[in-house]
């Protein structure tokens, strides 16, 4: 009998362990991680966090390490559609999980700012990573993080020191090329910010768009220190199955966090958005806004968990998830969750699932706009709350284009707004 998926990955680790770069502490961590992975196994739908997403289709695919995929034809021009027009950015490109220096370009950055590939850091100064890697995205209870920890080869390392402001966006572009051979890449990124002025501020944008055969399982761990401010935008346009897990922790008081998400699926796509916000310190504010637009027979999941611990007084937490179903066969599970142990807090959550408002469709049609265009306009309008949170205009324009490319009759909306 063939090995099951778990055994395949464990065997892959065993055979490639010798080639996995890194100092002794990392090799020990990898070993420990694969051990945890083997003990945990892949989650099933019995697992509370995976209740709504069946991993069977993912586990059926015999993935090979992405390093075996040929990055043929990845030239700068082909990456043009994945950039942001006039926006000037430093850009690190990763092809099949490996840093591609010839496609990357670093602009002049403030003194002390460092952008490197994780592989380079491990070669040149592994001690930089020792006290950080694996401390935030913890593998003990998460088999995908465990697998990534055991097998990662590369990724981005970004360090911004104290009192330093990087105004220009930094673009990390991860490209997968494999067509004939199913491959898996395990990139790992680490971003460290020192406090700038009174607080540190990070705006993070993740735009995920992959082929309809792709699987995407991602974990983002955010660890916020005193008075820090983080805004995470997650814009997901699907693959066959996408799982975005965002886990944030307020470890000291005065932090603020915005989670701003949009997922848009069609046909048989699946998009699972799992967020966990841990208010472990007082006087922090989190605002979460996720919207889902589901067409065809696609399925979506929003699972939002907010924990307010006993000492986290003066917490403000707001969570909203709204979903729009464009077809009778589309389906979404929305589970907002709030667990409050402190008593002096302001928290609320709301979740809706609905269709386009037929009276709004009629209103637009009664002015001469045809039915399909009316539906596209209203669908675009539904996404606009989330898109308008994006303050960098070229990114917002790109998002508009991505949304409108699925709603051709709504074209022109972005520019007139």
């Amino acid at each position, binding site marked *: 009998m063939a090995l099951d998926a778990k055994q395949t990955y464990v065997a892959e680790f065993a055979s490639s362990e010798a080639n996995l770069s890194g100092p002794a502490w990392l090799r020990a961590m990898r070993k420990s991680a694969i051990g945890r992975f083997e003990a945990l196994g892949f989650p099933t739908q019995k697992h509370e966090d995976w209740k709504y997403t069946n991993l069977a289709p993912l586990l059926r695919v015999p993935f090979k390490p992405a390093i075996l995929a040929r990055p043929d034809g990845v030239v700068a021009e082909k990456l043009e559609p994945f950039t942001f027009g006039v926006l000037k950015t430093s850009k690190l490109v990763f092809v099949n999980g490996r840093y591609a220096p010839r496609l990357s370009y670093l602009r002049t950055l403030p003194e002390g700012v460092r952008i490197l590939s994780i592989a380079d850091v491990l070669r040149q100064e592994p001690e930089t990573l020792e006290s950080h890697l694996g401390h935030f995205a913890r593998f003990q209870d998460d088999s995908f993080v465990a697998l990534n920890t055991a097998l990662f080869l590369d990724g981005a390392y970004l360090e911004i020191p104290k009192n330093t402001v990087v105004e220009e966006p930094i673009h990390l572009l991860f490209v997968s090329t494999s067509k004939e051979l199913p491959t898996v890449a395990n990139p790992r990124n680490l971003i460290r910010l020192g406090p700038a002025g009174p607080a540190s501020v990070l705006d993070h944008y993740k735009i995920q768009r992959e082929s309809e055969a792709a699987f995407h399982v991602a974990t983002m761990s955010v660890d916020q220190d005193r008075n820090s401010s983080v805004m995470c935008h997650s814009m997901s346009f699907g693959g066959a199955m996408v799982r975005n897990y965002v886990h944030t922790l307020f470890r000291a008081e005065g932090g603020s966090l915005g989670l701003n998400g949009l997922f848009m699926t069609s046909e048989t796509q699946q998009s699972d958005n799992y967020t966990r916000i841990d208010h472990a310190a007082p006087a922090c504010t989190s605002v979460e806004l996720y919207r889902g637009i589901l067409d065809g027979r696609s399925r979506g999941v929003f699972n939002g968990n907010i924990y307010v611990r006993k000492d986290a007084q003066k917490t403000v937490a707001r969570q909203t998830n709204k979903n729009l179903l464009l077809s009778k066969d589309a389906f979404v599970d929305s589970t907002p969750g709030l667990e409050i142990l402190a008593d002096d807090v302001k928290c609320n959550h709301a979740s809706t699932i609905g269709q386009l*408002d037929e009276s709004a469709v009629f209103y637009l049609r009664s002015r*001469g706009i*045809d039915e399909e265009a009316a539906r596209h306009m209203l669908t675009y309008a539904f996404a606009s709350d989330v898109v308008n949170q994006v303050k960098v205009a070229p990114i917002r324009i790109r998002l508009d284009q991505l949304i409108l490319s699925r709603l051709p009759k709504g074209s022109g909306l972005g520019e007139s707004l």
Partner: protein
Amino acid sequence: MLEISNLQVKVGGKEILKGIDLSIQPGEVHAIMGPNGSGKTTLAQVLAGRVTYEVTGGSVRFEGKNLLAMKPEDRAREGVFMAFQYPVEIPGVSNAYFLKAALNAIRKYRGLDEIDAMDFVTLIQDKAKLLSLDETFMKRGLNEGFSGGEKKKNEVFQMAVLEPKFCILDETDSGLDIDALRLVADGINTMRGPKRSMLVVTHYQRLLDYVVPDFVHVLVDGRIVKSGDADLARNLEKHGYGWILEEAPKPQAARP
């Protein structure tokens, strides 16, 4: 321009309009009055093409064409416009985008090119002035956060931009204070002309003090029970609907 013959309409299985006959010639303003629940809004919505209303009998011809067979968007493109009693709020679609899309859809249907961007700006500036609308409202979401009065002004503003041949005004006076009522009425009056007809649906007479109709029809229980000129509306204001209800034949009431 508009010929309604024996129009019968059901909503949710219930008979609301029980045989309406109404003929409107170019340039005429007709008012439909009636107590609550008489079918006024149903008549307006059926003419605009709302699908939740089931036409069970009769016909409506607009410039000789079968209006009831047309999709709502085609009715608008042919020149029918309804000012809604409750305009819908659509955050995320700006007034400007919406109105330009509507205007261009109508122009395309009539074989015209899309309106030039500068011409559009001039057009909306002119029409906004007419209704004392602040230009910044064009950038806001469609009716988003508008007061009741602003919504009604926006309806008449859209009507002024789209220049329909036949305007249905459904309770356009409701929710307006006296200043807004005057502005809206002035906007409507500016649009009166020998080629444009209007159907003003209202519960109260006060709008008709400003927009003086050529004909007034009283709708009771799904039927037009009395027609007259503007004096009829004044009489209704003075004496209420009671005397008409007594005068009118009531086949419904005769049933057990």
